Every structure is written in C-alpha cells, then in structure tokens.
C-alpha cells in the first residue's frame, strides 16, 4: 500500500483555514522558515480513505479475540467514546480556574476514591501517564520517603523477581537505584530462601507483580511482606495484573505501600495502537506528603487542585494527568459498580477454562490453577518438530486470532502467554482453543505450514534484522526507496523476535 506521501499532489488541500481581513506580520528574516515541510497534499476524501484503508490492515478488539497476555485487551465500550467527546470535557482548558472545572475535578476526585477502595490504600495521584511512569513515580516516592528519614544514601537496592516486566528494571535505573534480582521457585512463587539472603538494611524495597507475569498469585506474599517491612523497606505493586483481583484481594492488604493502576488495562481505556494509557498511583499514608502536585482535594461542597505540598517530588507530567483517560475509566467503573468483583472472577474463569482445555497439547511449566492469564510453552513442539512459539503465534493469525504474548516471561522457554479477559463469549474461547489444538497437530504433521504462516495477512513475515541493520525510519521522498545492502543472516535470526506485553 502506498504511503500518504506517495499519494500527494502539489496544490491539493484537505482543509481550509480562516483568513481574516488583516495584514499578516512578517517573521524576522533570520527566524523565518526557508523551505516548507513536505507534508502530504491531498483533498479531504482521499485523506479519509487513506486512513480507512490503513485501518483495514489492522486488527483490534473490535475485530476479534486479542489474548495478548499481560496487556488485558478487553472490550472498550462505545458509550465511553461518546462521553469523552462531550464539549464540557473535550473543550476544557487545563489551566482554567478551579471554579470552571468543577465537573472535571469532581470526576477526578471520585476516581481517586474508587482507586483507594480497589487498592486498599490511603491516597492517590492520577498524574502518571502510563504504568511505567507510575513505576518511576513510585520509586521517586521511595527515594523521597527515605531521604526524609535520612536513609536515602544507605538504601540503594530494589529487589525484582526474574519474572518481572522489563519496565521494572528500566524504572529502577531511571530512578537512580540498583537492581537486585531474585529467583522464582518451582511453584512459580518468589524463591523465599533466595530472597532472605538479599534483603537487608541496604534494601529500599521490592517491585512485584501479583499475580505474577506467570499468572500465578504468590502464595507466600505474607512472608514476603514481613521480610521487607521487617528491615524497614517498602513494597511496590506493579498493577499490570490487577484485573485478576478487583474486589477479591487488595494490594494494600497484601502489604504493598505503593501501587500503580493501568487504567488502559483493568479499566478499559482503548489501547489506541500503542497508547494512550494512564498509570495513577495509590500510596500508604506515610508516603502521601511526597505525591506529585497538583492533588485533587474536596473542599466543602467543591473541589480544587492543591499545589501547596512542601515535600512533593514535583511533577512527572503536565497538569493533573491524562483527563480523557480518567473519563473513560470512570465511566467503565460506574458501569460495573461493585460488580468489578464479578469482572475479575469471570476473567479468571475464562483463563482457567482455556488452560484446562490446552494443557495436554502444550507444555505447562507451572501446573496450578491460574489467575487471569497463564503461560504455556511450545518447548516440546520445538524440540520434536522444530516448531517455535513464534510459528504457533503466526499460524494463529490464519485462524483469525491475534496471537498471545510470546517469549515472555523470559524464564519460560518458547513461552505463550494467554490472557482472554472477562469480555469474551464461551464460543469465542472454544474457537480459540480449537485453533490452538489444531495448530499443535499441524505442528507435528506439517511443520512447514507453521513456518510459512501467516498465509493471508496483508504481509508475510517481515525481515526484522534488515530493518534494524539499515534503519529506514522515515520516508525520504525522491531518495526513496533507499538502496540497501543485503543482510546475511540465517532464517532463524531473521525471525527471532523478543517481545513482551505490558
């Protein structure tokens, strides 16, 4: 398909601009644009058709089942899209005085209250723009808390299990901490013996996803809590998997001191092809003074933004946060009410049902009941028939499904991480299972069918090594296409793809 720049014809326009009958002032010569940016030139109908055609080359929840583990790809209610476009929300400037934003502030305040209840913690900041920014903000709060106690120089270590999302160690570095990895035991829990040796008065805290990226609830969470709190360290809860436990178990009650909530996962903000997200954090009272500003507070019958927090870490993003995300998530939560518990129950039921039906056909590294997701392995298929998790994923596309997350978590070879969410009908789950079972048979009988998959997508498998060796990251107009030297790589290396859902 042509790029929009290749459809461009000089002199075409897609939208007009008002031209008041006024002189246009000159820009000082040395600051004025010399040559115009080569933006596309198309009439409006062609612009709309271009992007509509692009959409037909893409797959979303609205298209079909999207069991991308760890990403919680659930239904995005259409009413929320209508609501977020209400002029009272869409046309509100973020710097108006508080009296002009009472509806927005009331919504934010209620969302804070709901998140306090769901997490079992005392105070909330809605500001972080995504889960990974919530992580970083949480670690900044750790540092502010220990600095306030005079212990920041002493406590330099953050403990992270080997199943963690890559964002956790990356956030540790960005916050200026050092990483202490801890192993996973044979049941998929944190290895408590390994942990005991690694936690001491130099430990600032733990970052844990619970249930973990294996989809397993850590059975020793109370003991883990005692180990960290026993040395005065803090606990951070990566809320990526909160969809499993709403109304069932609360991070605050598990002992966590800071939690981020991925509004785009648990509370259904559409993922938008990569974003936006929302990563509010909830904290224990002892950490509240350090929260980013502004904080939304209730003041009599009204609401206001409070900036006067002398111990604040500052700001991690502009304004009070990604407001449109709050609107959608608040609307989603109000649709369920206390029924959020049923939402989590069904998410867990759906996952266990698929697991029960698939565990004979694929390897199951940890044979337990799962929470809202689980991890299978294609290890035997690979060993016996040369068929990899990547091949299984690509073949699933031929059956009309988005593949699961693959090759993550890193401790499971040939991992297939499956998260159905609560949204799906039993028929959909059955169709997916039937496809996975058929693919396991195909892998044994005709592995080339899988190696060559997908067969009917807009493109075949893409050469990722070539893309990375000679990066072409923008259209180059008359110099396009760019002459490329052939890259010598084995077929395997060309397809090797590390990925994680987050």
């Amino acid at each position, binding site marked *: 398909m042509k790029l929009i*720049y290749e459809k*461009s014809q000089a002199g075409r*326009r*897609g939208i007009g*601009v*008002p*031209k008041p009958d006024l002189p*246009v002032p000159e820009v000082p010569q040395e600051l004025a*644009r010399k040559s115009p940016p080569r*933006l596309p*030139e198309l009439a409006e109908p062609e612009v709309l058709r*271009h992007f509509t055609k*692009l*959409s*037909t080359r*893409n797959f*979303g929840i609205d*298209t079909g089942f999207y069991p991308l583990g760890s*990403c919680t790809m659930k239904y*995005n209610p259409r009413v929320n899209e209508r*609501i977020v476009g*209400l002029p009272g*929300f869409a046309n*509100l400037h973020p710097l*108006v005085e508080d009296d002009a*934003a009472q*509806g927005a502030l009331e*919504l934010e305040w209620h969302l804070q209250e709901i998140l306090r209840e769901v997490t079992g913690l005392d105070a909330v900041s809605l500001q972080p723009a*995504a889960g990974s920014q919530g992580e970083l903000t949480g670690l*900044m709060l750790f540092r502010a808390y220990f600095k306030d106690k005079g212990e920041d120089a002493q406590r330099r270590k953050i403990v992270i299990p080997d199943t963690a999302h890559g964002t956790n*160690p*990356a956030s540790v*570095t*960005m916050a200026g901490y050092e990483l202490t990895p801890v192993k996973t035991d044979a049941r998929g829990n944190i290895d408590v013996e390994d942990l005991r040796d690694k936690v001491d008065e130099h430990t600032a805290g733990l970052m844990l996803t619970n249930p973990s990226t294996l989809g397993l609830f850590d*059975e020793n969470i109370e003991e883990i809590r005692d180990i960290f709190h026993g040395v005065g360290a803090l606990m951070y809860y990566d809320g990526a998997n909160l969809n499993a436990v709403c*109304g069932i178990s609360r991070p605050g009650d598990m002992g966590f001191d800071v939690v981020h909530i991925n509004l785009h996962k648990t509370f259904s903000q559409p*993922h*938008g*092809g*990569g974003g*936006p*997200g929302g990563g509010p954090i909830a904290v224990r009272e002892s950490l509240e003074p350090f929260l980013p500003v502004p904080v939304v507070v209730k003041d009599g019958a009204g609401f206001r933004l409070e900036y006067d927090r002398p111990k604040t870490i*500052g700001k*991690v993003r502009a304004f*009070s946060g990604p407001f449109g995300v709050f609107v959608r998530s608040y*609307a989603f939560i109000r*649709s369920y*009410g*206390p*029924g*959020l518990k*049923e939402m989590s*129950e069904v998410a867990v039921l759906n996952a266990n049902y698929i697991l029960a039906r698939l565990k004979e056909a694929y390897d199951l590294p940890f044979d337990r*009941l799962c929470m809202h997701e689980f991890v299978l392995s294609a290890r035997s298929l690979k060993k016996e028939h040369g068929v990899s998790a990547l091949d299984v994923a690509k073949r699933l596309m031929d059956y009309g499904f988005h593949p699961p997350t693959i090759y993550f978590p890193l401790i499971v070879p040939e991992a297939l991480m499956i998260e159905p969410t*609560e949204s799906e009908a039993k028929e959909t789950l059955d169709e997916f299972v039937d496809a996975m079972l058929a693919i396991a048979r195909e892998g044994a009988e005709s592995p080339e069918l899988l190696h060559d998959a997908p067969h009917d997508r807009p493109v075949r*498998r893409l050469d990722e090594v070539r893309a*990375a060796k000679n*990066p072409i990251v923008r*259209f180059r107009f008359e110099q396009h296409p760019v002459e490329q030297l052939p890259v010598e790589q084995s077929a395997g290396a060309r397809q090797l793809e590390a990925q994680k859902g*987050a």
Partner: protein
Amino acid sequence: MSYLSLTHADREEMLAAIGVSSIDELFRDIPKGVRYGRELDIAPALTEPELQRHMEELAGKNIVDEVCFLGAGIYDHYVPAVVDAVLQRGELLTAYTPYQPEMSQGVLQAIFEYQTAICELTGMDVSNASGYDGTTVAADACFVAKHATGRTKIVVTEATNPQVRQVIKTYAPGFGLEVVEVPHEGGVTDPDRVREAAVDAAAVIFQQPNFFGNLENAPELAAAANEAGAMPIAHVDPVSLGVLEAPGEYGCAMAIGEGQSAGNSMSYGGPHYGFLAARNDYIRRLPGRIVGETVDAAGERGYVLTLQTREQHIRREKATSNITTNQTLLALAGLVHLSLLGPQGLKELGETCMALRSYAQTELAKAGLEAVFPDKATFKEFAVRTGRPARDALAAARAKGIYAGYPLGRDYAGLDDALLIAVTEKRTTEEIDRLAEALALERQP
C-alpha cells in the same frame, strides 16, 4: 450494566471442565489473610442511559462557553472532523502496540508516516513514535544528552514552560543530573548567558516561541550551545513550523514539543502526545518505539517496530527508557490534521494566528494595556500588563464571557499584573474586540 457474555450455564460447564466446584475455588492460592471479605464500596452499577445522563451532568458543571484566550502550552485550535472519524475506527482505536506486524500494518504505517511528518516539521532525521506529553519528552531528551555527551549538567532557559522545567527537575535526581536555569532578559534569552552556562553541559533546552510567546534568537542560542559542546534542544510548537524555521536548520541536535496543537482537543490536559526528534547520530539512544521499513518474505514492503535492543523489554535495566505504552492514537490525530493541512495549510494557519495576534496586540494597546515585553516579535501569544492584579482582570473579563489568559504571576516574580494571551485561528476580530473592551483601562491624560 456489565459487559460480560457468560451465561449461568456457560459458567457451570466451564467450572466442570476445569474440575472445580465453584468460582471461589479458583482463588484458593490467595492466602486467607489477604482476601477482601466485603463488597467493594463503589456506587451501584449504572445502565448506559443512566451513565450517559450522569456524565452529561458532570460535563455540564465545567464552564466551556467563555471565549478562550488561554494558552500557556495548550491551545484552542480547531480539530477537523476527519480526525474524529479516523480515531473512531475500531481497528485503530482498540489495537495495542504493534508487536505482531502482520496484524498491525495499519498502525505501523501510520506511525512511519507520523515519524516522517515530525522529521519534516523539525528538520530532523529521526523521530520516535511519541512520548507522553511536551514535558516528559524534555526529561527523555536530558537522558539522551547525558549518555551522548557523558556530561551531567542540563541548562534550561527560564523562558521555557514552567511545567517542562518542573518535570525535568523532578526526573533529574534519578538521572544523576544537575539543572541550571538561565534567566530571561526582557522576555528573551541572552545568547551570551547561555554560552557561559553551557560550559560542561550535556544540553541546552530552550523554547521557541518561548513561554511568553516571544521569539528567541534561536540560531544564536543553538550556536552558543554547540560552541560549548552541549546539545542544543529546541522545544517547539508544531503549528508554528509552517512559518518559523525548523530547529534542524539552525543547528539543533534534537527537537521536542507538545503535539496537542496539531489534532488534539484540550481535554483538560490530556491525553495528548509529546514528540521527540533527533539527528541521526542519536538514533540508537532514543527512547520509545520507532517504526522502520523492511520487506516481507515475498519481497514486499512492510513496517515493523525496530531498533528494539534500545528498549526495556530486551535491554531491561540498561534500556534507554522505561517507556512502553505511548500516545500513538493522539500522534495519529496529529498526522491526520497535518495531512489535511499540507504545507500551504500549515503556513496559512500560522499566518492567521499571527494576524489575529497582531490585531489583538493593537486593540489591547488602544485599550490602554501595555506590552510586558515591548517590541519583541511573537507568534500567537503575548503578554500584557492589566494595570491591576491579573486575577482581578481575569475575573472582570470572565464576567463578560471572556477567558482572557494566563496570569504570569503564578510562575514569574514581578509579573503579578501580567496576563499571557493566546490567539488561535478560531478567534475572530469581534471576539478580540470584546476582549479589549473587557480589559480596557481608564485612559490617563
């Protein structure tokens, strides 16, 4: 109203297949001590009509019918209808990060086209797929500069958006960076002051047009940074780049900014997108997703996420950033808007903003309001002295249905009487006349 499909019979059948007798039993691995034994204290569920009504009531409590001259980083530009139509395509709206390129060519190609548009606007070689907003991309740029130069000082001009500066300062301790601010002089930054501050600095960050709306002598600021071996980084407004020079043309190493002006409604501050572009030298140090062109097994052109060894899911604690979820949908809105405008439309948009801004300056001067920074060239925003505390002036204008601007005293000492006034292409001369009338001062003889 929930969005669940399973019937009672489905649930029974599924529990039997799993081999448990109840839903509760699925949660047996959760220790009793950490179970939540109560119902969540959340208001009862609403049906869709009830939800619509409740949300309309909340939206109705916001005041959005005052004529908006408020800017200071977020602007009341027009968002074309085609933007909404594209963003509501479910295949784009409800997809996630394109990890599986065969399922995601639509989003991948759109990001490639977005990256191209940002490079064209800024005069840079490479753009990422977006950052969270115009503040966080500044922090990202500091991280790039630290590792590219091996230096730990960041210079930022005081005339840069206060929220951008605050976010940089919040990130700085974790990055091991020291932040130095260069004061403005009469509303612009003196290149000589930058030259002194830039010694041993990793980067010099300045805004063009700056927070006061004034045009900096950007080529000289960039040159001052380059002379000291610091990376010049320009924070720019995308809709200004049809009339203002591209940062790549005056020696900047990186260009960053808030993308809201192009394609996004104000939405009380988000979600929007930040853009981040750089010279090719820094391509392997950039944070976030980048889409590249390649070929498929049949030799056909296609797009993939590329240079992923920079990223957290592979490099973990050695990654260039922790960013995962970004702002693709909002960046797509920017691309659609820019595609509708084209180069001529973007230039006209800038010219209309400037023409109306100039008219507003003239009318406010006639109404007795002095310019805070006389004789400074501006783009779509400027500062005036209101002759009284700015909040009083704001209140007087609001009583007449005009939201007159941003009180600069919130961030700058000595400007308690000053309002920052933004004029977009949506404003009319009649609205500007009303603004001037609402703010008019008694003429002194």
